[in-house]
Structure formats: structure tokens, C-alpha cells
């Protein structure tokens, strides 16, 4: 069934199957990523949301070999980039793919930019290495890239060091580096947290443009549900190191199924309407991932939890076809919950804007 009509345009650029990552801390293990499967097609934008600490960053970093090992161990799974399992590549080959074919924007710009190199040098480096440009051409292209992400006075800024840039400017430098080689896949981990909404809109437009022009696929991790609603084709929701729900964006917002997703959508504060005295939160603590999940990890915070939830970890199953139904077996509304039939479906109003 996985293979289905796996040909031509529908074939995913990236297909991740049952990825498992553990941090081995000697005395204890942290099971950060547990059997995570997802895919993204050419030109598609997959939004990834989920609780803080739910394994979003670790998932993405493990699939391109960016975690220090030890302590990180990828204990299983396949990561197919155009059909080739990149987990089996040598570190050297993987590092060529990163930068050239996969661009990565880190959640924490200050630690991933080199503090002692100028921004211009850091932008030119991948162009020289992967695109074979000479210094002059690389420098000219670097200025263009900085302009593309809206850094004013880009030429003068090339000789600046990261600490001389504002938080949002550093984030945009990271984006420019990730886009430098026009990758097939961009993985962006909270790429716009330090950007105001107008510059964020500009970055989003740039990304949409590259998706159309180059067919670039994008994985966009964010806590901003407004951004997800606006730009994603599909959304994947993570909780406790697992994918708990995945659906086309409209389906997810119109009829969220997983109790965690529903709780998450209820917590969004409104920009208009009455101001709440206290903001909504999801009661209870997130799971601490000292062992692989043997039960539903949301059960302690869930109104529907029963005996079954405490002993069987639910699989992420298809509960409905995508509304704009295609015959692609990979598309649809997937949920990992034992109580999906009991949960209200289409009538659920998720949107907090009118609250």
C-alpha cells in the first residue's frame, strides 16, 4: 500500500519511515523520536506543529545527520530522498546533500552561525563548495541573497559579524544560507520567530515563489498556527515524540480529531473579539520520554482516556479521505487515537478567532 502509485510527480521528494532516535545518556535514555513516518512531495509545504519538547527539531536533525552522536542514536527507520536511503550514506556524502539538495534553517540562529566569520563569508561558502563558483561570483550572489531576505544595505552588511545583526536579521541570514544552493527540500525549524509580521510575510512570499519556480518542497516547523493556516498544504501534529495527527490543512483546522490537536487549537489567543482574563492552557504535564511509548502518551491529559489508552499505543490510521479527494493512498486524515469514532468530527469548530 505504501508503494501505491509511486511514480512521477506524486512521488515524494522525502519519505521518512518509522524513524526512531534515542539519546543515550548513560544512566538514562531519552526516546525523543518514536516511529515517526511522513513524506513531502515536490513543491509541497508540510507544516509541523506540536508541543515544546515533542521531538520536532530532533526528528528533522536526525534525518540529515545533524545530531552529535553520542549521545544521539538513530535506532531505526528509513529516510528516502528521491528513493535513496540517506541514513545509509557516509557522513561525507550526507554533508554534500545537506546544503546542496537539502537546506536547513536552525531554530537557534546564533549557535549555528559562526561567530568569527563574516556573514558574507558564511553565505559564500556553500556557493563555492557546492556550486563551484569563484569568490567574486559567490560574493555577488551572497549580496543578492541578503537582499532577497530583506536585509537593508546588504552590500555593507556583508562584512558584519553575526553579533552585529539583530535577532531577526540573523534568522534571515540563516534562511539565505539555506536557500543559497536552491535546494530540492528546505527544512525550516521555526524560521520566523524573530520576524515581525510584515517581514515574515515577505519571507513567506519568497518561499512560495521558490516552490513555484523550482518545485522546492518545504517542511516548516512552527508554533504559529496562523502561519500554518496560511501557508501549509498539509499539517503534521507531533506529541511525545510521535505523529498524532496528519491532514490537509483545511481538514485539520475545520475538523481536528486528536484530543491534543483540539486542545492546542483552543489555546490560540484572539486578535479581535473580547480579551480573555486568563489565557487557556492545556492542563497537565507533557510526557517525559525516558522510555519508548507503550501506551497513548496523551492519556494523562485527555478526557477520553480509558483502560485501552493505558495499555495500547494507538497507530496513526486514516480516519477520513482528504476532502478534495485524490486517489493517492498517502493523502487523507490520519489520527493516532483509540477514540476517533467517539470524537465529534466535522462539526467541531477549531478556530479561536471568533472566541
Amino acid at each position, binding site marked *: 500500500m505504501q508503494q501505491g502509485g509511486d511514480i512521477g510527480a506524486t512521488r515524494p521528494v522525502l519519505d521518512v519511515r518509522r524513524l526512531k532516535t534515542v539519546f543515550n545518556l548513560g544512566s538514562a535514555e531519552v526516546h525523543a523520536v518514536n516511529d515517526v513516518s511522513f513524506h513531502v512531495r515536490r513543491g509541497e509545504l508540510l507544516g509541523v506543529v506540536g508541543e515544546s519538547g515533542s521531538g520536532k527539531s530532533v526528528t528533522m536533525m536526525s534525518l540529515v545527520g545533524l545530531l552529535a552522536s553520542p549521545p544521539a542514536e538513530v535506532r531505526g527507520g528509513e529516510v528516502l530522498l528521491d528513493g535513496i536511503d540517506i541514513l545509509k550514506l557516509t557522513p561525507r556524502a550526507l554533508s554534500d546533500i545537506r546544503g546542496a539538495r537539502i537546506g536547513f534553517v536552525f531554530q537557534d540562529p546564533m549557535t549555528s552561525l559562526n561567530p568569527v566569520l563574516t556573514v558574507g563569508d558564511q553565505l559564500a561558502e556553500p556557493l563555492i563548495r557546492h556550486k563551484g563558483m569563484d569568490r567574486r561570483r559567490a560574493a555577488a550572489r551572497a549580496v543578492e541573497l541578503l537582499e532577497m531576505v530583506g536585509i537593508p544595505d546588504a552590500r555593507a552588511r556583508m562584512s558584519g559579524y553575526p553579533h552585529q545583526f539583530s535577532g531577526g*536579521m540573523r534568522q*534571515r541570514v540563516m534562511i539565505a544560507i539555506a536557500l543559497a544552493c536552491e535546494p530540492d527540500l528546505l527544512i525550516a*525549524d521555526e524560521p520566523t520567530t524573530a520576524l515581525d509580521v510584515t517581514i*515574515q510575510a515577505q519571507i513567506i512570499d519568497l518561499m512560495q515563489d521558490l516552490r513555484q519556480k523550482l518545485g522546492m518542497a518545504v517542511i516548516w516547523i512552527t508554533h504559529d498556527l496562523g502561519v500554518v493556516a496560511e501557508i501549509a498544504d498539509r499539517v503534521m501534529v507531533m506529541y511525545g515524540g510521535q505523529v498524532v495527527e496528519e491532514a490537509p490543512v483545511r481538514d485539520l483546522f475545520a475538523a481536528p480529531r486528536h484530543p491534543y490537536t483540539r486542545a*492546542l487549537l483552543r489555546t490560540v489567543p484572539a486578535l479581535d473579539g473580547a480579551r480573555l482574563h486568563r489565557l487557556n492552557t492545556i492542563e497537565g504535564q507533557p510526557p517525559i520520554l525516558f522510555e519508548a511509548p507503550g501506551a497513548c502518551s496523551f492519556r494523562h491529559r485527555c478526557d477520553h482516556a480509558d483502560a485501552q489508552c493505558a495499555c495500547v499505543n494507538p497507530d496513526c490510521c486514516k480516519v477520513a479521505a482528504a476532502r478534495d479527494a485524490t486517489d493517492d493512498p498517502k493523502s487523507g486524515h490520519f489520527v493516532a487515537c483509540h477514540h476517533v469514532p467517539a470524537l465529534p468530527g466535522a462539526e467541531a469548530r477549531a478556530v479561536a478567532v471568533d472566541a
Partner: protein
Amino acid sequence: MLDHAIPEDLVTVEGLTMHFPIHAGVFRRRVGAVRAVDGVSFSIARGETLGLVGESGCGKSTVGRALLRLCEPTAGRVVIDGEDVTTLDAARLRAKRPAMQMVFQDPQASLNPRMTLKQIIAEPLNVHTGWDTDRKLARVRELMEAVGLDRRFVNRFPHEFSGGQRQRVGIARALALNPKFVVCDEPIAALDVSIQAQIVNLLEDLQERSGLTYLFISHDLSMVRHIADRVAVMYLGRIAELSPREALFARPLHPYAEALLSAVPRADPSRAAGRRRIVLKGDVPSAARMPPGCNFSTRCPRAFDRCRTEIPRLAEVEPGRQVACHLFDPTKPAAG
């Protein structure tokens, strides 16, 4: 609730200016200056939250750092609780530190990678209290609980945390000494909405209980609308508008504030299509080369001749609302 009679100001900022020199060439000669903050004045009442929003790179973090004298401002006065912090000597500044704290924008960079979570949060307690180990540990645990970090994390190092977990370590550390004034620089940017709500509720509880005062820097306008009493909108080193929350969100006056508020994405794909976003066109000037008149004039859809020659002053245009824009100049009627 807030006492509206005579709000006594905890923080008063006058003409705050911060210019960073630009060096170039082999000899790193000084060739100009980045005017990161250019004559900013405002005040914050005791127990009030002032929101600070604006374009990326407009100088918000620099204002925050200069307020707590984490950098030396080029000019201006910053009075906090009756003392001008820009002139305090090292010893007096140190004595004042516990009362004024900062939550940094870049959590990873502000946490010492070689210290465990316990050591990081306890550091201000070591420096400024004479408490014994047990009392300090109890306080660390209390703080961790308040920001939603599992107590079993105490011996972990910063790199072992997710982005949002690290951000909460920074918040716990800033609150350790029960400060009076906290500059929160994007304190919730890396958190999911539920934990954002938990942190914001915590900040509000502390404010209600012990009258904390906040400068809350954020790009998240719906959160600013929730937490701030008044909001300052900055553009390129200057304040464009400073208004009470409700008034600003209902009817922004400054054209930049209007454009900013129109661009917020909503968590509703069915509405995303029908929105009217004001897209700013024109050159984005840089803080190194400011235009001669209003710094927004190169992109302002409503700019007229005067805007390109004369810098508008921040002035009260309606009760409680200050705007720096010639369109609202009460003395001379605007052309067009």
C-alpha cells in the same frame, strides 16, 4: 487592579540613543554609524506592562539592553525607581541588578553551555543572596515548576533541551531574585501556544501579586494585545506610535502601525483568502543611512512633501495616544 489616579512611573526613558560605529577596510576605520536607537522617550508606570513591537532590526532589543545598561547608550537618560542607571558606578549598578532583569531573545546564546540547569538558575542566587544550598535548591525547583519544566531536568545541560525548554530556563533565571522590572525580549517566541499561555499567565500572576513591571518585546501581536496595557510601535530606531492597547488595535493611527497590524496571519484557512493586507512598497532604508525626514517616508503610502524633509515629533494627538506623524500634527493641517 491598576490605580489610574496618579500612576507613578517606575521607568522613565528620555532621548535614549544608541549608535554603533561601522568600521571598514583593512584598518577597520570608522566609516559611519548604525543608528540602532535614535532618541527614544517613554515611561512605564509601576505594575504596568508596556508592549514594544516593530520591524525586525528596528532597535527593540537594543532599547531593552540599554535600559538595563547591558550596553552603554550613546546618549539619553534611563531612570529606574528613582535612579539614573546610565550614570551609576559599578558597585551601585551591581546592587541594583537584582531589581532589574532581562529574558534574552536568543536563549541558547545566553545560557552557559557548561553549566547544568540547576547552576544556571541558581547563579543569580549565589551572587546576590547568602542562602544555603537547600534553600537555593528549593527556590530552583519552585521556579522550574512555575515555568513548566520537569524537576528531573535539574542536572541537564542547555544543549539537551528543546528550543522552548531553553527559553523557559532563561525565564526562570530572570525571575529568581523577585525583580521589580523585567525586560522580556521575545520571551515566548519558541513556545507552543499552550506553554506561551502558561508563561503569560505566570507573568500576569506575578504582576498582580507583587506589582512587577514589564517591558514586553514581541512580534506576536495577539499576545501583546493580551498582556500589554500600552503598546509602543517602533520603526527604524524611533517610536512611531505609543497608545493604549485597545485604542491601538481598534484603530492604529500611524501608517506603519496600520500596515503592521494588517499583516497578522490568522489561524483560520477559510478566512486567509479574504484578508486585506497592506503590503509596504518602496525602499527599506537602513539604520546606517536614514532618510532625511520621517524614516518611514520611503515606504509610507500616505507620505507627502513635508514627510521627506522634516522629522515628525512624537506628540499627543488624542488623550493618551502619542504619534510621530505629520498627518496628525495638531498645529499645521496636513496637505492632501
